[in-house]
């Protein structure tokens, strides 16, 4: 896929390559939402080449790019005019966006952590935290497919240590 090269304006397009070799063409300003990528781009190493992201698969990367695009646009609107109405719009977008299955959600969190996109990381982690909140221990295991690797004695010891906190 061709790329606009040599254009240093804000409409410069960069290419991101996911772990499964999917290529995404993204505006530079959107890419800069990620602190990690900002570092790479500003050092001018990748302005003419593909930025490989071996830690992020295509499906997740596409979602992240969508998030960054939306937030970049919303920020532009706020800078240009009254932002109050937009903050509801962006909140609605966020809740819709993060309403995905656990597996995708965990993938987004890891990618947002790697790419250092704070808002997305907060959004994802808060959603997972909400999923965990007030669940019983067994429900958490079932929801996230976690194996109980405690010995019965260990389990008992921990339960007793924290007995005061539960009914």
């Amino acid at each position, binding site marked *: 896929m061709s790329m606009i090269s040599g254009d240093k304006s804000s409409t410069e397009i960069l290419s991101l390559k996911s772990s499964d070799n999917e290529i995404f063409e993204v505006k530079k300003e959107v890419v800069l939402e990620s602190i990690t990528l900002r570092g790479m781009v500003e050092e001018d190493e990748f302005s003419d080449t593909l930025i490989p992201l071996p830690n992020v698969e295509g499906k997740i990367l596409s979602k992240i790019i969508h998030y960054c695009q939306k937030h970049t646009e919303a920020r532009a609107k706020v800078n240009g005019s009254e932002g109050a109405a937009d903050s509801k719009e962006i909140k609605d977008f966020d809740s819709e966006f993060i309403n995905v299955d656990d597996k995708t959600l965990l993938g987004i969190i*890891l990618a947002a952590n790697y790419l250092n996109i704070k808002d997305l990381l907060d959004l994802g*982690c808060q959603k997972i935290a909400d999923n965990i909140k007030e669940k019983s221990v067994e429900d958490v295991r079932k929801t*996230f497919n976690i194996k109980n690797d405690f010995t019965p004695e260990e389990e008992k010891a*921990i339960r007793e240590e924290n007995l005061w906190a*539960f009914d």
Partner: protein
Amino acid sequence: MTLNFSSRPIFPANPSEDNLLSSLRIANGYVVEGISDKNSNGFGKPRHFNWEIEDSYDCRRDRADRECYHEPISNDILDILPSDPFGMDISATFTAITGWIEDMEADSENYVRDEAGAMKGDYQFVAGLNFIWNSALRFQTEPGSIGIGERSSPVGVFHGWVKDNEFGDGSCDGGFGSVTAVCNVEETPSSNDDDSYAAACHQSNECHEAAEDCPHGEEAEAPHEGLLLSLGYLGVQDLLSAERVCRTLCSAVQNDSLLWMNIHIDQPLSERITDDALMLLIGRAQGSLQSLSLVECSRITDDGLKRILETNPRLKKLSVPGCTRLSVEGIVNNLKAFKLSGAPGIKHLRIGGLYGVTNEHYEELKLLLGSENCQQSKDHKPRYFHCGHLSLSCDDDRAIDIEMCPRCQNLRLVYDCPAESCQGQQTAAQLCRACTLCIARCVQCGRCINDGEYEETFCLDLLCSSCWKQLLNCPERQEEKDVTTKNTIFHQETARYHIHLDG
């Protein structure tokens, strides 16, 4: 779930094996034909078979046998059974089958391990069969038995297996299950192969291997890394729950000091947490606790607070609203000692709800907080009264939350007014700004309630008329218009009323 022999030619189509085939079929047929329902008990109607062989041997023995088949655990039956009812030279049959099973085992080992599901079942099935036949052989060579050529009926096999239970091979039910699985072969030839293999596999597993995770679903595993990142977004009670999920999470919760740098204790832990329990939690911060918020923790004492300050020199924010066992003197002394110990000291203190604050206390606290030169409160963002105010008191950047009420000159929490009519007043006298004893406020929106209409709630809070109407207009509450409405509404309200209900 049964095995489908027809699609998997386990029995070699070898002329010399025909006898084998027929013997096994009959062997199974003996039991299978008796199965009229899905009952795993293979003794449905043994009579049918018995009638067929009546001619070949003594029918009296059959009838006795019939009874015994319903109670398989019987030593006598073995003596009664005919050795070779069909004249099949059963010793040869046994040898053939044993060889066949051994071949299958050898083949199983060569199968690609990727197809573990079916192959495993295959192997297990083979192992199961092997077990049965080995048991039968063993039975054959038992002292007291007539000899190899004689006790060869398939029933003998079956019973031989059953007898094996007593040999302590350590595989009772599982083995029985295997037999059942084998015997059910002819029953439903259209069954799914995988299911049947899984069934045999599952049942054989119990006797041939140690318990493993369910072969049907996903294997449970260690928690995803994303979960560990999310721990920081959990409250204290949820963190303590997470600790019990698995070792990885337990280790993360107990050893990651970043999770414990800002501790907030709210309901329902507030009334349960003691000094010692709090010390344990704070200990996880490994001395780098930065902010501590204890909302209505009525069991925390001045001594407990002292210990906390001694061990956490980096503490900057302390919020203890509604902690009734703490005294102003205690706090002042603790903060003095804290400062003297060389710590940078607390910069933000919240003690709203503490009674008996005198001017001296107030001045000393301001000094300790380093805020004697701080700007006047009007430069801070306005604070509005809201029933959840106790939890939100750390939000603004004031050094201390209480101040002198402009009206009564007491040191209390002072609130601004969100009402439009109260905005924009210039003189201090007209400013709608005072403690809640001087200016009553709506517990929901914080508006001043002077002569306007208001309702008093069950908890003795006040609601202005518009908030009251809003509550009443809520769709699910349309039916509840009687006197008890107040109570039920507040039981249904969100957590912000929770504090008052519990109080």
